[in-house]
C-alpha cells in the first residue's frame, strides 16, 4: 500500500555520495573561506594539540596555493610540554605564519591573576585570551572545539557570537540554517568559529592518518614519570606536582589531549603508531575529556560556566 519499502541492500548510494571524511573536510573548508570572505582580522587558536593542528592543515588546504590569510594565537599557560612548544615553533617557521602569544605567566607575574591552590591554570586562560583579542582587534577567532566533546558544546553554533568580555549568552546565539552563516557583530564583539563542530575524536584521528599529518610525540606511547591524582596520570614537573602523599612512578603512557600540564592526564597505552592509536580509540569506552581533563570534572556544569565566561 502507501508506506514505502526501505531498501536494506547495500549499494543504495550513488557514486556522488562523499565519504564522511570528505564531507567533513569540505564543510570545514567552506567555513574557513566564509570567514576569510567576511571578516577583517581572523586568527586561529593554536595550542599544538591535535585539533588545532587539524584546523591549520584544513586552512592550508582551503587557500592553497596562496598562504593562509590568518595568523595564529597561542594561549600559553606556562605549563607546556616542551615537545609541543618545539612543534609549535617548527610549524610556524615551516609555513611562514605569524604567531601571537597570550601568556598566563605574564599575568601571574604582574599580579593580575593569582595561582589557584590546586595549581591548575586552564581556568586562568580566559582573561589573557580576551585581552589579546581586544588588543589585536581580532574579529573572528577559530577554535578547535567539537560538539561531541561535552554536553554544553552539543548546542554550540559554528559561528558563536561573543560580547566584548568574550561572554557567551545562549539566548543570543543565532539559529544556523542550511550553510548560511551569519557573522554580523558590533564593534568590540567577535565571533568564535568552530570548523570542526561536526567532527568526532575518531574522525580527527582518521583524518590525521589519511592526510599523513605530523603530531607532537606526546600523542604516542612513551615512558614518563607520572603520579596519580583523582584517577588520572599527571606528569611530574615544576608546576606543582606531586604533593607529599603522591608517589611518582615510571609508566608507559600517551596523551589524548594537549593542554596545561597541571590538569591534562595521560592514559596507559602501548599505542606507538597512528593505526594503534585509532584502534585504541575505537575500542575505548571513555570520552577524551572524561579521561584526561581534570577541569571538566569540577562540576557537572563546569564547561557551561567556563563558556559563559569566555573560555574556548
Amino acid at each position, binding site marked *: 500500500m502507501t508506506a514505502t519499502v526501505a531498501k536494506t541492500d547495500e549499494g543504495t548510494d550513488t557514486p556522488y555520495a562523499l565519504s564522511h571524511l570528505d564531507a567533513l573536510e569540505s564543510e570545514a573548508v567552506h567555513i574557513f573561506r566564509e570567514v*576569510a570572505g567576511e571578516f577583517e582580522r581572523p586568527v586561529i587558536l593554536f595550542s599544538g594539540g591535535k585539533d588545532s593542528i587539524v584546523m591549520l592543515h584544513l586552512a592550508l588546504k582551503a587557500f592553497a596555493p596562496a598562504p593562509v590569510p590568518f595568523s595564529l594565537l597561542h594561549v600559553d599557560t606556562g605549563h607546556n610540554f616542551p615537545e609541543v612548544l618545539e612543534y609549535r615553533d617548527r610549524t610556524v617557521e615551516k609555513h611562514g605564519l605569524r604567531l601571537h602569544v597570550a601568556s598566563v605567566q605574564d599575568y601571574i607575574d604582574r599580579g593580575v591573576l593569582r595561582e589557584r591552590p590546586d595549581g591548575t591554570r586552564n581556568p586562568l586562560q580566559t582573561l589573557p585570551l580576551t585581552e589579546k583579542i581586544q588588543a589585536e582587534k581580532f574579529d573572528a577567532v577559530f577554535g578547535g572545539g567539537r560538539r561531541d566533546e561535552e554536553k554544553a558544546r552539543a548546542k554550540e553554533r559554528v559561528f558563536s557570537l561573543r560580547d566584548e568580555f568574550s561572554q557567551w549568552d545562549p539566548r543570543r546565539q543565532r539559529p544556523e540554517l542550511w550553510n548560511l552563516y551569519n557573522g554580523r557583530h558590533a564593534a568590540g564583539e567577535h565571533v568564535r568559529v568552530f570548523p570542526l563542530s561536526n567532527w568526532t575524536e575518531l574522525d580527527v584521528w582518521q583524518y590525521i592518518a589519511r592526510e599523513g599529518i605530523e603530531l607532537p610525540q606526546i600523542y604516542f606511547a612513551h615512558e614518563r614519570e607520572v603520579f596519580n591524582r583523582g584517577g588520572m596520570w599527571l606528569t611530574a614537573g615544576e608546576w606543582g606536582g606531586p604533593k607529599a602523599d603522591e608517589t611518582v612512578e615510571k609508566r608507559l603512557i600517551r596523551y589524548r589531549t594537549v593542554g596545561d600540564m597541571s590538569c591534562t592526564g595521560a592514559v596507559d597505552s602501548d599505542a606507538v603508531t597512528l593505526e594503534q592509536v585509532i584502534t585504541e580509540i575505537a575500542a575505548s569506552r571513555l*570520552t577524551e575529556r572524561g579521561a584526561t581533563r581534570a577541569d571538566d570534572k569540577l562540576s557537572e556544569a563546569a564547561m557551561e560556566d567556563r563558556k559563559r565566561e569566555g573560555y574556548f
Partner: protein
Amino acid sequence: MSTITELTETTLLRFATAGSVDDGKSTLVGRLLHDSKSVLTDQLEAVQRVSADRGQDAPDLALLTDGLRAEREQGITIDVAYRYFATPRRRFILADTPGHVQYTRNMVTGASTAELTVILVDARNGVVEQTRRHAAIAALLRVPHVVLAVNKMDLVEYKESVFAAIAEEFTAYASELGVPEITAIPISALAGDNVVEPSAHMDWYGGPTFLEHLESVPVAHDLSHCHARLPVQYVIRPQSADLPDYRGYAGQIAAGTFRVGEAVTVLPSGRATRISGIDLLGKPVNTAWTTQSVTVLLEDDIDISRGDLIVPSKDAPATTQDIEATVCHVADQPLTVGHRVLLKHGTRTVKAIVKDIPSRLTLDDLSLHPHPGQLVANDIGRVKIRTAEPLPVDSYADSRRTGSFILIDPADGTTLTAGMVGESFAAPEPVKDGTDDDGWDF
C-alpha cells in the same frame, strides 16, 4: 591499515528528530546511542550518578541529551542539540530538536540540513495536531526522507491494526503535502523493540529496524539532472614569483556537477567563459560535484568576486529583484511590512525591503490568514521581498541551497527569518492504488 580503511569507507547521514517529550523522543535517542554503543562509560556514569541523586531507580537516558543548565533546571530542551554516533556502515549527525518551546524555529533549523526527519507518535494517541505540524515542516523544508516512528507499541499490545491505521493516516496526510518518501516503523523505545534489534513481539512486521533504515537510506541522489551552482566564496590570488597570474575561484558546490571544459556563465554580470581546471583541495580533477569544496580556474580573465555565482551557460537561472518566498520567522522581534533588512543568499548579502506579507500559515490545519501585518517568532508565512541588486535565485523545490536565504537585521545583526523561494509545498504524489496488495507491505 585495515582498521583505518574500514572505518573511512562510510558515508554520513544528517538527520533530525521531532516529537514532544511525551512521545518518548529523548528515550528513543538515548536508546539509539546506548544500543549502538555510542554512550561512553564516563557519560553513562554521570547520568547514573545524577539519576541516583534525584532518587530515580533507572538511569534516565533523557539526561544524555539535555545539555544546558537552564534546561536541566526547567526539565525541558530549549535548543537544537547535535549528537554523533557511528555504526560500521555509516556515521550519523543527529539534530535533536525540542518538542515544546520554540519548536517551529528549532525544527526548521534542524531540518534545513537534514536528509531525513524522524517524526514520533505515541501509538495510543495516533496522529495528533503536533504530528501534522511536524509533517508540514518536513514538507516545507523538502526533507527527502521522512520516518514515522510509531512508539510505545508495548502499550497497545504490539497490535498490527493499531500501527497500520496510524501509518495509513499519516502517509495520506504527508503525501498530500508532497513528502516524497515516507517509511513507517513500529517501535518501543523503552523496551527496545525495532530500534536497533528486531522486535520479538511483532512478527507481522517484516521491515527494517529503525537503525537499519538509517543505515541504508540513500544520502545522495543522481545529480546529472540537477542545476549546477557554485557560489564564489573567495578569490585565491597567490601573487607569488612562481604563480604571478594564478586566479582561482573558491567555493563549495551548492548543487549539481561541474566539468573541465564546460561553458559557464558568471552571475549577476552574465559574462561567459569555460572552466580550464578544477582543483579539489590540492588534487586536479576533471569533474566535481556537490558538496565538494573546490577551486575553479577559468579560461578568460574576467572580473569575479565573492558573492558571484558560477553556473553552466546552458542552465543559468534568471536574476530577479523581486522574490516571493515562504519564510519561518526565527527572531524574537517581529518581521513587518516595510522592514529594511539584509538578505544573505549563497555567498552574497544585499539590502532588501519586505514589500508585503500576503499570508500567514497555520500549521495545525494549513489554513491561510491573509495580510497578518507582521510575523512573530515561530510564524510561517508568505513574503514578497524587493532586493537592492538582482539575485540569481532558484526555486527551493529545485535546489535547497540556492533556493534558500536568511534575512538579517542590519541594526543588531540578528538572524530574523529563514526563507525558501517559490511555492510552499510540492504537488502531492499521485495516490498509489492499493488494490493489488493483500496487506501491509513494510
